[in-house]
């Protein structure tokens, strides 16, 4: 007997999405749809590395922070053995939340329901009424806190739900070259992160962070009118858009002709960077005015020059941004400010103040962005958007910079949809149950889009 399974809403959208992307378009419902969310929480967030914390947030044994890992809360702790672990904040006994803090330092965590106690390495070390209740026979070794897989790169701690995920180094696939611009010289985070919830779909934020130089002169036009930018609207488009094919990671680097190398970094920081960068990194990064990058799926890295007072000398800030999805159309945004460990207290404070003036819930740039993103998200969920497709065709004929010194594929100018095509193609591959394996097994369909060959 022939049985026909009706195509689910998610499968239908996925099929439309793949067809649309071959024409350099993306269907609007991908910006906010519950069926898509159900699929992506399993197939994207279930299989990706996501950012959890910076090692400088938990420098001492016993330090911990509580963070989201793809929808589940984890305690990211430095155990008494000095190892960093990400342990699900769920008691294995009856599923109660064990730790109710945002951060702290503790040797042990005790569940408030039946009192099972775990040490900061996740071992079950105490069970009330062991003799009376369990006849002394419960094997504590069977019931540790469940641990997520972790990996780290230069202080950034990532976690993954899938125990079979390729290691972090393979996952980043060369994008570390560009991450170094934010992580050099040796960085730490300044204070606890800002976090707040907004009605924005994570993909709206991630796509923008994949390197949207196109929105800057419009969304943030106030910056030009108040004299905030060291570039003009006319030169804003110049620079590089680089993506790691099939992986979804990308960076946009805006450059201003004639700009001083590493401008607005203090000389001692430039010296420290020069000592650590490879010659290839140095040659590119010295010219980057703004660097906006995405570690797929939802971690943004941003470095921007800013003078708090227009026309006065400014500074550079680097920030980590995490768009933790709560459901379709809603995220909890986390922002951290990175400062060089070696820098003076005054410099670090100035960097933080520049960062918080620009980004975070009161940030002048953040406010503009999220206002637009809220409308995009809301409207993508309306019937009017059901059959809409958005163009991703900017830069279809972009010049590939064969001589570019960094890894990945580089196109110019900076305003370009190539990295967005890479983002969506990677995303749709994950949704299609085809997470990336090796780029060599794929062929380029359109610039930015790899397909299995």
């Amino acid at each position, binding site marked *: 007997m022939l049985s026909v399974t009706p195509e689910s809403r998610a499968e239908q959208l996925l099929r439309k999405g793949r067809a649309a992307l071959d024409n350099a378009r993306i269907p609007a419902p991908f910006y906010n749809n519950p069926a898509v969310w159900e699929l992506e929480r399993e197939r994207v967030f279930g299989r990706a590395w996501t950012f959890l914390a910076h090692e400088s947030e938990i420098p001492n044994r016993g330090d*911990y922070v509580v963070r989201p890992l793809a929808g589940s809360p984890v305690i990211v702790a430095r155990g008494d053995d000095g190892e960093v672990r990400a342990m699900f904040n769920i008691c294995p006994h009856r599923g109660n939340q064990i*730790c*109710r*803090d*945002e*951060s*702290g*330092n*503790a040797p042990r965590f005790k569940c408030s329901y039946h009192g099972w106690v775990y040490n900061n390495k996740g071992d079950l070390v105490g069970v009330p009424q062991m003799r009376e209740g369990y006849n002394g026979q419960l094997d504590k070794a069977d019931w540790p806190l469940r641990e997520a897989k972790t990996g780290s790169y230069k202080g950034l701690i990532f976690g993954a739900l899938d125990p079979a995920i390729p290691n972090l180094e393979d996952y980043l696939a060369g994008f570390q070259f560009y991450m170094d611009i934010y992580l050099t010289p040796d960085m730490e985070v*300044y*204070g*606890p*992160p*800002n*976090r*707040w*919830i*907004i*009605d924005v779909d994570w993909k709206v934020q991630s796509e923008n962070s994949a390197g949207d130089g196109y929105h800057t002169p419009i*969304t943030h*036009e*106030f910056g030009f*009118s*108040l004299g905030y930018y060291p570039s003009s609207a006319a030169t804003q488009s110049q620079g590089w858009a680089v993506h790691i094919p099939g992986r979804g990671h990308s960076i946009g680097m805006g450059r201003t002709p004639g700009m001083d190398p590493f401008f607005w970094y203090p000389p001692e920081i430039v010296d420290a960077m020069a000592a650590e960068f490879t010659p290839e990194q140095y040659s590119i990064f010295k010219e980057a005015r703004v660097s906006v990058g995405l570690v797929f799926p939802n971690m943004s890295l941003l470095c921007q020059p800013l003078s*708090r*007072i*227009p026309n006065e000398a400014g500074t550079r800030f680097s920030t980590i941004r995490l768009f933790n999805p709560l459901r379709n159309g809603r995220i909890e945004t986390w922002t951290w400010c990175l400062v060089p460990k070696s820098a003076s207290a005054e410099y670090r*404070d100035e960097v*933080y*103040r520049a960062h*918080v*003036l620009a980004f*975070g*819930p*009161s940030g*002048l740039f*953040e*406010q*503009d962005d*999220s*206002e*637009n993103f*809220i409308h995009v998200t809301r409207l993508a969920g309306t019937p009017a958007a059901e059959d809409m497709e958005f163009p991703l065709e900017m830069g279809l004929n972009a010049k590939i910079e064969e001589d570019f010194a960094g890894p990945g594929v580089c196109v110019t100018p900076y305003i370009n949809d190539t990295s967005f095509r890479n983002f969506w193609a990677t995303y749709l591959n994950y949704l299609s149950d085809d997470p990336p394996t090796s780029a060599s097994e794929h062929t380029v369909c359109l610039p930015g889009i790899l397909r299995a060959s």
Partner: protein
Amino acid sequence: MPLDLATAQPVDESTLRDVERFLFREAELVDDRNFEPWLDLFADDLDYRGPIRVWRGDSGYQIDPVACYFSDTKQTLRIRVQRIATGLAWAESPPSVTRHFVSNLRVVEGPDADQRTARANVLITRSRGPSQLQETFALDRIDTLRRAGDSFHIVRRLAILDSSMPSAQNLAIFF
């Protein structure tokens, strides 16, 4: 040294009334979006901060000494006002309608001889355009005031939100 409000000397009744009148006037100006005269109430050496409140397992609620939602000087506060005036501040288009409720006012002498410290419970409601949503912010607000003629200047404002997770799409308003 931060001033300990519990042990500091309360101001006399007439000064209390002066401070209350000043803070009500300030709230009226900001709610009326009468931003230029509102800015004039702040000292040139202003420190206007909204620190982050963090719940730590080992030490309870901590008002973080560095991390904040905003950290403005008189100049950057003025830039926020100028930005709204450009018509390009999309998060304030349409503009917010705010209502600052300033209550439970306590005023003490210090920390400097010419200064008073005012602590108030502040509730701010914010509505915007056609949206039916109304955001509410509850805060512990500690102002350091300096005598300026027959009025005051705000030298320092510490606006400590109760929530460590602001229930708002942004913090584009003034506290």
